[in-house]
């Protein structure tokens, strides 16, 4: 699978590394070149300095040939914006997006993105740890 990852922070780097080890073709983008230090020396994918919200930068990263796009920068709005660029403008078939704010995460999911909120998930996991039993899942 060809995957473009926007943001080489802890999460982005970890995803890039894991997928690379499994033999997927990975391109990681970050505006800050020092971020690529988070990748292991064995990383076989491509790194590109650039902003994932910028059309030409995405094109340079080969967005049109990608099977998946993942937005993992620190900014919820940036992640949403870049994900919609990938989806609506470049028609990438799988677009995954990290959103810290649970409310926005829910809203963006309703709009049709594949979203993930470490806040909601982390809260649930930690409450479960404390109480020693799973929190009942809300049925919507």
């Amino acid at each position: 699978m060809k995957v473009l990852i926007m943001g080489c922070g802890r999460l982005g780097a970890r995803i890039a590394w894991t997928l690379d080890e499994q033999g997927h073709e990975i391109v990681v983008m970050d505006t800050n070149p020092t971020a690529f230090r988070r990748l292991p020396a064995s990383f076989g994918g491509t790194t590109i300095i650039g902003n994932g919200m910028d059309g030409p930068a995405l094109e340079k990263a080969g967005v049109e040939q990608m099977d998946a796009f993942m937005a993992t920068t620190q900014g919820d709005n940036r992640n949403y914006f870049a994900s919609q660029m990938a989806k609506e403008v470049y028609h990438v078939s799988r677009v995954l997006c990290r959103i810290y704010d649970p409310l926005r995460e829910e809203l963006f999911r309703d709009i049709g993105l594949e979203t993930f909120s470490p806040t909601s998930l982390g809260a649930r996991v930690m409450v479960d740890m404390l109480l020693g039993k799973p929190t009942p899942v809300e049925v919507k």
Partner: protein
Amino acid sequence: MYIVIAGGGKVGFHLAQELLRANNEVLIVEREAARVAQIAEELGDSVVQGDSCEVSTLDAAGVARADLVAAVTGDDEDNLVICEIARKRGVPRTVARINNPRNELLFKRRGIETTVSATQAILGQIEQELPTSDIMIPLLQLASGLELVEMKLPDNSPVVGRSVREILLPSESLISLIVDPGGVPRIPNGDTRLNAGDALVIVTRQESMEWLREAFIGSRHGLDT
């Protein structure tokens, strides 16, 4: 109309001033407390402090009852998110300022109106929404520099009942097509009478547009209503 303006920079501030002057209910949502204080000095309680990208801030601003949300911060990604939240809350119309013109396509795909610039352009777009003004819609600028506009005649239009011949149009202006309220298009001649609800497609010069608005619609300015 109740209008929520996200972002109290120059654009947001002047936009609010204009809209307040036209008797709209306006609320600016601005992140920086110092800027909020500055705006409050000029506009009183038409400003509130908060991050408009937060769902809870917009809810507290009563976004659900807004007729329009204008997202005019300096960040395109924030403006996109603000408009998306507003739409999810049922706001019928959202307008975003885009700072990078290349982003226009994305906003278009998301069904959000955009404007690349400053107060006047945003006002121009909003104006179409105000009572008298969805009746004059710029369609196209022709290669010759002439403009093609569509104008829908309101019931109280001064030209209703008159024939095309009786209307003295400005130079280089022409009523090229009339679509009646039933949706039937006709090419008018001098004897064609104008009826309320007719949509006229007019070729004209930019500088004659205000004149046409006055002659065909009666009000000089959409915001005066």
